[in-house]
């Protein structure tokens, strides 16, 4: 491979950098994590992972992440639609605002969301009247995860939607399809691979999210404690083995889920088959 003449030189150099980078930044730390976790015996593994506290935290983390990613897909699609399809004053500003959750320190996001959604906050006070509590419970976790997840959907779907020519819709319209049919049978299927990618990114980000969630969740063990927080609390009690076992298990599950989503996405992406 490397000895073939190429237009742009430097294959070996760039491959070398890539391998070293991936090694130092990703592979070695992860290997260290699994090594640490391997130091714990299989029986103990099982014991750590099947405690109610861990199972509850896992349920909340994966459940809320999936739900938040799902909602992010719907919201993201809507926002993308508005950004791509319409011209209106302040469009660039709105477009820029989409990225704010990327840039904002997650702790700031968490504190702000808590302030607003807490029972005495701007929005929380009204939700309270309706009998809905939006902070210090799993709904709060879900809100925080939606906040950080939806830019991923917008940014993955946006270029694909921009690429969808107007003629596709017009073709469908001249063939007798009404707007609803055009959306469901033409536009949505064409966007689906991008939506799945957006879902995967939002989901992955949500699973690992820590900063914004710990403020709004209330962190009650068995109730509103997420896995990353559980890991931190194990570390604080110097239970390094348990922390690494939980982390390794979480990583494995996340990896498998993402792999599955990617395979699904590949299957759907008719362009790359």
């Amino acid at each position: 491979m490397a000895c073939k003449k190429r237009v742009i030189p430097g294959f070996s150099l760039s491959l070398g950098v890539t391998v070293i980078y991936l090694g130092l930044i990703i592979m070695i730390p992860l290997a260290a994590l699994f090594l640490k976790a391997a130091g714990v015996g299989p029986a103990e593994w099982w014991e750590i992972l099947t405690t109610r506290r861990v199972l509850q935290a896992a349920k909340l983390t994966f459940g809320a992440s999936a739900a938040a990613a799902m909602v992010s897909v719907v919201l993201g699609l809507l926002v993308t639609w508005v950004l791509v399809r319409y011209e209106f004053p302040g469009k660039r500003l709105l477009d820029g605002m989409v990225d704010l959750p990327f840039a904002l320190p997650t702790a700031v996001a968490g504190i702000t969301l808590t302030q607003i959604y807490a029972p005495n906050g701007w929005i929380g006070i009204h939700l309270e009247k309706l009998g809905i509590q939006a902070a210090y419970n799993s709904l709060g976790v879900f809100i925080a995860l939606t906040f950080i997840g939806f830019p991923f959907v917008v940014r993955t779907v946006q270029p694909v939607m921009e690429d969808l020519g107007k003629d596709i819709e017009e073709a469908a319209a001249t063939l007798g399809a009404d707007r609803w049919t055009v959306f469901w049978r033409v536009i949505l299927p064409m966007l689906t691979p991008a939506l799945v990618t957006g879902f995967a990114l939002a989901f992955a980000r949500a699973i690992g999210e820590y900063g914004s969630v710990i403020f709004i969740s209330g962190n009650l063990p068995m109730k509103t404690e997420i896995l990353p927080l559980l890991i931190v609390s194990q570390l604080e009690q110097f239970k390094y083995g348990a922390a690494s076992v939980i982390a390794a298990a979480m990583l494995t599950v996340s990896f498998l889920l993402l792999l599955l989503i990617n395979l699904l996405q590949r299957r759907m992406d008719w362009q790359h088959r």
Partner: protein
Amino acid sequence: MSISIQSLRKSFGSYTALDDLSLEVPDGSLTALLGPSGSGKTTLLRIVAGLEFADPGSGRIAFHGEDVSAIPAGKRGVGFVFQHYALFRHMTVAQNIAFGLSVAPRSSRLQAEEIRRRVMELLKLVKLDGLEGRRPHELSGGQRQRVALARALAIRPKVLLLDEPFGALDAQVRKDLRRWLRVFHDEIGLTTLFVTHDQEEALELADQVVVMRNARIEQVGNPQTVYDQPRTPFVYEFLGNVNKLGFGNDTRYVRPHEIEVLFAAEFDPSTDSLAQVHHLFSAGPVATLTAKLHDGQFLDIELSRRQLAELSLSVGDEVAVRPLVAERVR
């Protein structure tokens, strides 16, 4: 079905795309809308399709006498083919073609078996049988355009509208598909309106050529008429090569193949002009000779290579040039 367009007006803000335009497209004809970009030809086609609407209160479009001006695209019964095919890339060829049939209202929708049969029929018609399971990205440009055509025909449209149908294709494919479309049109006899900016395409393909410029129609006629008897200087210059000669305030147009080249000894002052051979070019089916008139104007002349050989001219020789066709002066 004939298409009748009466005093159509269309503006986008302060820009006028169509200015009080009327046109008759005879039943079963293949009519070309020809013009440079910005002449309004695509806008006209889109208004006929119902993808765009004329300015309120202006004009009328009728198919076979029936006013369709207010009917939206989906109910107008037009087959529309886009320059860049606009195929649904997540669907197979068969699904693309069947789309119009499968989205029809439940009450008038065909049985699945009947849809399948018609798709197969159309595939055969556009010579793509066997490719029904492919997806658009697995097809060549010419094949994609034929899928788009089959998809448009599936709904049994009253008229067929093609927007620069060969615009995105290679020269060779373009030529083949053009010829194929002509034969195809003669077979199915569907009234067809197509937009092009390629004069050769319009002249070779169409029964009727509509030359457009600046939101108006310059001339309508069969290819022979618009080529041989252009009504305006624009049509003269737009359809094929032409020599434009100025004599004072007078401008004359003469096509390169309508000039005879004679030895200077045969000069006839009543019809001819004397000129000097300025350049010779004979690498092609016809030879081109550029002559320089005594007043300094250049004249491109096309003649057969045999004629050129018989004259055995070289650059700098004096010749007599004689326009073969009665001069057309505007």
